[in-house]
């Protein structure tokens, strides 16, 4: 199979994630959409690694996974803190710095 197929799939998943970030209001779901975008990028890295016949792409995908895990931990802790003070996990309710 040509790597083009995988890259198109990765582009579609990335776009779906981006639209989800734009559309959804729940902070946790927005976060999940960010994770989907990271995963789509990983798929592109893996298929590029296979296309070029070296393992650097897989290494980068591995680092992306590590960074994503760290990001999820801190992000969910922030969401929990906001929920504790404002009793809401909607991104619309966090608007103290708006005006």
């Amino acid at each position, binding site marked *: *199979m*040509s*790597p083009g*197929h*995988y*890259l*198109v*799939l990765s*582009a*579609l*998943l990335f*776009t*779906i994630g*981006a*639209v*989800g970030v*734009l*559309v*959804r*209001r*729940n902070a*946790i*779901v927005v*976060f*999940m*959409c960010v*994770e*989907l975008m990271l*995963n789509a990028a*990983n*798929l592109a890295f*893996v298929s590029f*690694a*296979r*296309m070029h*016949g*070296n*393992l650097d792409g897989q*290494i980068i*995908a*591995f680092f992306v*996974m*590590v960074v*994503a*895990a*760290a*990001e*999820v*931990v*801190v992000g*969910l*802790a*922030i*969401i*929990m*803190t906001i*929920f504790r003070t404002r009793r809401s*996990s*909607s991104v*619309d309710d966090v608007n103290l710095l708006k005006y």
Partner: protein
Amino acid sequence: MIDTQTSVLAQTSGQAGEPVVFWLLAVVSVAAALGMIFLRKAVHSALMLAVVMLSLAVLYAVQDAPFLAFVQVIVYTGAVLMLFLFVLMLVGVSSTDSLVETIRGQRLWAAIAGIGFAALLVAGLGNAALSESMGLAAANGEGGNVIGLARLLFTKYVFAFEVTSALLITAALGAMVLAHRERHAPRPTQKELSKRRFRPGGHPSPLPGPGTYARHNAVDMPALLPDGSVSELSVNPIIARRSGTARLHADLHGQTEEQAVEHDVAAVKAATEAAHDADAEVRETKAGTSAAGGPASEGEAGK
């Protein structure tokens, strides 16, 4: 051993079944990703995300990346999604997105932007000169994918690997700092709690238990008070928020909610009247048998 592994890798790089796996998982993952956007409940979105991640893991395995496939399953599906589900349960499962658009036309423009972006990416990929994939049999070398990755990770990328450890420690510390809650007031003692219960607005007696007589006894079933109103206090607030209250009294026999509630009210009234009558009968018989002692003792009780 090494020979068999390299031959397996050579086979996997040119698998015959790869198009089947790819098209199946591509459809499944795109459908699940769309479901993640469109499902209103956050838990359903999380499950859809799990489907996407698992199918991506299989796609990694198909693309000669068995190590990343396992890491994907363990780290993403195992750790990250469980973390998401934990936080969802803490925040409240019932938190569904409101369908009200706070910015007018936001969804429409987001959809247009998304379609445009996807078209741009796909067109760019279509124009790119993508060579046929070379396969990783040569790059994996002797020992297979894991040893090949380890060789790179501990030579060329060793500095990035070390920096990663600093990142992970920082993230762990940050999560601890953010999740820690200072207790500003001292913990209330049992005495203070009991005083608070007897103040106006408190509830000195135990709360009424859930369940309505013989018909339902589930924890999400609010108790009916003698006047037929539903006692909100009898159900855990989180459960009550999830499952409505009066709706649960709709009966199995195709009654409407109101009819069911009226039925319950009538049953309660009949039961209380019957109890009252029985009580009166018992008193009459008591009064009849001990006619001499009864009034005197009642009078004493009155005083």
